[in-house]
């Protein structure tokens, strides 16, 4: 199922030298090829081949989207009947949100009017309503959701997946981040930390926008036949260097890297070219409409990358969901930019038969308090919030876990961020306790020493 990105292959015109048995053994003195997947045989039957993580940076309010709390309407303006957690700026006064909740679809899943698109596909969603995580501030919680650590430098989820499975496309990286934030840890949230550098995400755009929608340095200051000649000459020089130097891993690796870069240059433009989609498809993603154009492009690109074999794609909203004030205006604006593209993405994946083995994860680093901050906002809430899954072998039209009566603390069937990570890896056929990397004398895991697969949400 897996083709190795940097697996040894015929160098074609570049491998004019003969590789004797000695050379082959010289190739990998430390054992495994750097780029070979760590998990060659799945630990169990995978239910998903890839993950699209729609990161709602800032923290959307769960009590205004997927976690219906009728008592909020009844007790609007009253004091919270239990103590607030430490270190928050909100008042202990309950605030009902401005959006109505309804049961949706055949499943009757509760979704508010804020997200009409996602409400319309409720039967394809699996809502975990009992999420909790570490970090009262963005920095920690963003680190938790992206790397499993609220304070230390650790590889990102996508880097672990890249390390485990490699890419499913011969010429594309396994891990891509579209529009990642420069703040709250920036590159750390899609970085490889101590894993080999190749597992860091290839970045497209920044801060919630896909930018020019391209991989950096794929094109250069020179182009056309000139750049072809340059690539060609580099490989000639390198091959000659290898001939003179004798077997050498570094030179061989560099030759392969140039080869892959060259093939990526040829393969990527087609995959990254959204014009190859029909006018109707692009319209469905909201491309061309001012509100949805940016996130629509990101989501459509994510689908194209998923289709091509990229393992882990993060699409970031930018840090827009952080409504400490003006909850109504802010959340409505964010919903208007993201809801349609997200909905279309899930529909599109289904239409193309990709949904069954693509795990879509929608969520923020935390939720928002059911109590008011200022006059009309909500503060950060890592104590309880919702994350939405779809496809990839999870249940549909299903809600799991509960927060308390007001949506503050995860109470029943609590799911920690580590548990979500364990579950994501599980769907990819990876046992989170067996995916390890030795660094500084210790075997590290994405889930540290924690994490339980949330069996109840698996289909």
């Amino acid at each position, binding site marked *: 199922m897996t083709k190795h990105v940097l697996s040894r292959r015929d160098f074609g015109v570049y491998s004019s030298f003969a590789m004797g048995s000695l050379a082959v053994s010289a190739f990998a003195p430390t054992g495994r090829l750097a780029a070979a997947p760590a998990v060659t045989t799945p630990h169990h039957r995978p239910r998903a081949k890839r993950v699209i993580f729609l990161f709602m940076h800032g923290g959307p309010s769960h009590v205004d989207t997927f976690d219906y709390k009728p008592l909020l309407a009844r007790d609007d303006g009253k004091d919270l009947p239990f103590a607030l957690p430490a270190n928050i700026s909100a008042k202990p006064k309950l605030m009902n949100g401005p959006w109505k909740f309804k049961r949706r679809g055949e499943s009757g899943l509760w979704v508010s009017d804020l997200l009409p698109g996602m409400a319309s596909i409720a039967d394809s969603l699996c809502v975990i309503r009992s999420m909790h995580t570490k970090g009262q501030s963005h920095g920690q919680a963003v680190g938790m959701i992206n790397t499993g650590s609220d304070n230390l430098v650790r590889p990102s989820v996508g880097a672990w997946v890249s390390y485990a499975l490699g890419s499913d496309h011969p010429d594309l990286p396994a891990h891509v981040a579209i529009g990642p934030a420069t703040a709250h840890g920036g590159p750390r949230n899609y970085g490889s930390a101590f894993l080999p550098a190749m597992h860091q995400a290839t970045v497209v755009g920044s801060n919630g926008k896909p930018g020019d929608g391209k991989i950096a340095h794929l094109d250069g200051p020179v182009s056309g036949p000139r750049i072809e*000649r340059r690539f060609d000459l580099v490989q000639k020089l390198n091959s000659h*260097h290898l001939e003179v130097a004798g077997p050498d891993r570094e030179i061989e690796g560099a030759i392969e890297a140039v080869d892959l870069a060259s093939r990526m240059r040829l393969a990527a433009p087609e995959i990254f070219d959204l014009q190859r989609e029909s006018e109707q498809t692009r319209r469905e993603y909201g491309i061309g409409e001012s509100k949805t154009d940016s996130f629509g492009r990101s989501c459509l690109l994510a689908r194209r990358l998923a289709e091509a074999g990229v393992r882990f794609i993060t699409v970031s909203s930018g840090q827009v969901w952080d409504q400490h004030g003006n909850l109504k205006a802010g959340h409505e604006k964010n919903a208007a930019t993201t809801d349609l593209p997200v909905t279309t993405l899930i529909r599109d994946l289904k239409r193309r038969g990709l949904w069954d083995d693509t795990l879509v994860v929608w969520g923020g680093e935390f939720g928002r308090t059911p109590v008011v901050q200022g006059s009309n906002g909500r503060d950060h809430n890592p104590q309880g919030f919702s994350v939405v899954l779809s496809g990839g072998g999870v249940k549909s039209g299903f809600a799991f876990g509960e927060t308390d009566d007001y949506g503050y603390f995860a109470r029943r069937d609590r799911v920690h961020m580590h548990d979500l990570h364990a579950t994501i890896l599980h769907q990819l056929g990876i046992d989170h306790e067996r995916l390890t990397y030795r660094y500084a*004398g210790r075997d590290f895991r994405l889930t540290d020493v924690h994490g339980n697969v949330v069996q109840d949400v698996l289909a």
Partner: protein
Amino acid sequence: MHFPPRRVIPVPTNLGLAIAGSAIALAIFAPLPNLAAADPADSVAFFESRIRPVLVQRCYGCHSVDADEIGGSLLLDSSGGMLTGGDSGAAIEPGDAEASMLVSALRYESSEMPPDEQLPDHVVDDFVRWINAGATDPRKGDAGPLPKREAIDLEAGRQFWSFQPIGAFSDFSPRSTQDPIPTEHLPTEHRQGLIDMHLLASMRSAGIESANESAAPATRLRRLAFDLTGLPPSEEVMQTWLADPSDSAWARLVESYLASPEYAQHWARHWMDVARYADSNGSDFNATFHEAWRYRDYLIESMAMDRPFDQMIHQQVAGDLLPAENDKQRYDNIVASTFLMLGTKMLSERDKAKLTLDVVDEQIDTIGRAFLGMTLGCVRCHDHKFDPIPTEDYYALAGIFKSTVTLKGESQQYVSTWNRVPLPTSKEHRDAVEQFKVAESKLKKQISESEKQIKRLKSSGAASLEGIIIDDADAIKSGTWKSSTFFKEFVGPGYVHDDNMNKGKATITFQTRVPKSGEYEVRFAYSPNPSRASNVPVTITSADGQHNVTVDQRRAPIQAIWASLGKFRFTTESDAVIVVSNKDTTGYVIADAIQLIGTDDATTKPDSSKSETASKALAAANEQLERLKSELKTLQSKRPTPLPEAMAPSDAATPKIGDSRVHIRGEVNNLGDVVPRGFLQVCSGSDSSIKDPVGSGRLELAAWLTDPDNPLVARVFVNRVWMHLMGEGIVRTVDNFGQRGERPSHPALLDDLATEFIRGGWHIKPLIRKIVMSQAYSRSSEFVPQSYAIDPENRLLWRGHRRRLPAESIRDTMLALAGELDKRGRTQPMKGRGTLVSSNNADSKATFAGVAETCRSIFIPVVRSYVPPLMSSLDAADPDLLVGRRPTTNVPSQALVLINSPDVNRWAEKTAQRIMQQYHEFDDRLMATYQNCLSRAPRQQDREIASEFFGGQADSAEHWHEFIAAIFAGTEFRLLD
């Protein structure tokens, strides 16, 4: 801790509860008032009905002898288990629920148990009642057999190679072996150094016939120049060397490189990798490290002057505490201790106790790996699993760093900032700053007074209010009136109130003589508020007699503070008298001012003289204010440069200095025993704790690190230097000398080098000199199948390791070839940046001085989260991590940035232009290209590749540009043979 998914626990039959799991759950969670009333909390029946089912259903999964993995070593399946407890101590204190760990865990106040779902309040209440009633437990007393972790055996641990005293392996030195080295293996006489004797002996015993010969002179020089200076050899040096590649010429080259400023810059960068150097915090809140560059320059200076490394350790660990003979020494000491501050921190962590522990952890981890080659981070939560380091040792060190101030204050709510220490400067500078401060604050005070005066003039009525104003200050008071300015809107300097007391005993009389007879409206000023009296009696004596009015001070109908009392006739013959009383009032009575406004023709004519005086006074005041402001502006334009300060630690105030408790499992609130401050027991004598620590204990720590008896520090450092010059360390895991690290390939050599290093006074240059003068250093990297078959990884150094140049050298060389390189240093790279390097939101578009600059790479600021792609793709140290040995990666993005980035392309173009201008024949140009870029002449095959590429277009600028660009992106350019 590990929590397996909830499992159905078989219900022991002796419970007598023949119900299925789900039914138990129902039984637990449904309130059972009758039962509660029936069974007293100290009865067995209460335990059986209320406590045991919950334990079985919700706790035994992880806390019984049958569990796969026992959580926190805690067993809850016997009364003894509960009383003995686990890692965190006893689970229950019978009779005292509030002191019981189990209760705080069930309440989610310490650990959160059960982790998947909190128990309902009434169930937790049952546990509280049960424990308070004595925790009656009919289960068998003793805890089941718990697999106890074995205590660390320090004595056995000391047998590990790296904890043996330095010199322990020298006994196995070839010098002392009975079997002398056959003469044919010996190099020429004057090179029979220590290093070669060791290496040749090991090769000989492995069966390697002979080591490689020396590399070609040009190759050797390129190696030496890059290793010592990070730059290629100049053409002149190359010519001189090739003319006389003798040993004495080599020695002269070594000396001249070691004395060059480029050497200091290059070798400072090596230690910056270990020091996780950066000019910003990165992480959640990318705060600017405005002063980090001072530490960078301290390192460069240290390398240049060959400062002893033990002194550098002292300065970096405790520089702020060291005595100094002069200002320069004091400056260096303080700036060196920036080392402790440079780690990336989660500054916005709101739980500051946790943040402090995280910062201490980062410091211990850094010191552990940088100096000791020990991974101490994991010991925060449990004894080291592989090395003989118990948790107590970690908290012995933690006590030292908890007694040290690293973070101090907040730059905004919830966001911590760090400690700053003033640096020495000249008396003139200090005086100038002091004088400026005094002058500035004096002017600011005058400005504020002037502004107040203007406000007073405007509001006193003289300027802004029409008619006649009688302020409370000018009124006649009887009884008790209190002055106040609590409510901010008032006339004159304030107002008075009756303090809501002594009702009927306070009056205030406003009295004036109108300038013109006629009708006036009388207004009354007070600050309205619901706490005021609603029925304040006011008596007005006019020309027509007395009038009584009642005022509701809870509201003010006119503007903010005024109410009209009506229109009355006054004459110039007698006073207008307005008396406010607090008789029969409820609530505060306020009196601020009375205003009389003329309402008929006779009284409305302005009193020109009075308003003129007023406006004159106001104009004068305004003029004075303007003058003061302009003086301040002038003063501030001559502001002296701020007093220099360092990002450095301090010792905490004496009451806050102390030993640390163990934090069980590393948790902030889970406290164990106090551990006296101290060091690692395994490499200390009998007692590793500090006797009577002075301050935090950092001075003692520095002394312990640099003690010649410390088995690790010198070995670890010598090994780093060896790695930078030879390509691999004698211990290849340079940051890990523990069980999980690799064993040394040549322990005796490492010991000899370390011994000599210590005896020689911890000087780095002699060590480097010794290594680069060895024959081993000069060996060619040629592939020899016979040797390869025996030692494919070249552990025995039968050849030179071919290795990647550091990213800095690759860029600096391109810049040098393009003729752009400026070798001068740069200070204050972050000057002008705010608290944050960039705004912390999604729209930040910050840019920083990057690879396009002309300075050497070491002087480009290291802004975390913004490391330039050229540098990161060439494996420059990740500033988030301690990097003892840089990884060498080959990824497509590296190829793309080398081939396609505008900067590399520009340098290639400029290099091509220079070569074309300097030489005109194709062969000369090709020769110059190879000499300049690769420090060698082109070979026949190189010429063939070139002629094929140029295809006769020897004068095409485009072709030369492409040719150089390809060489820049090629492997030979970035590899050191």
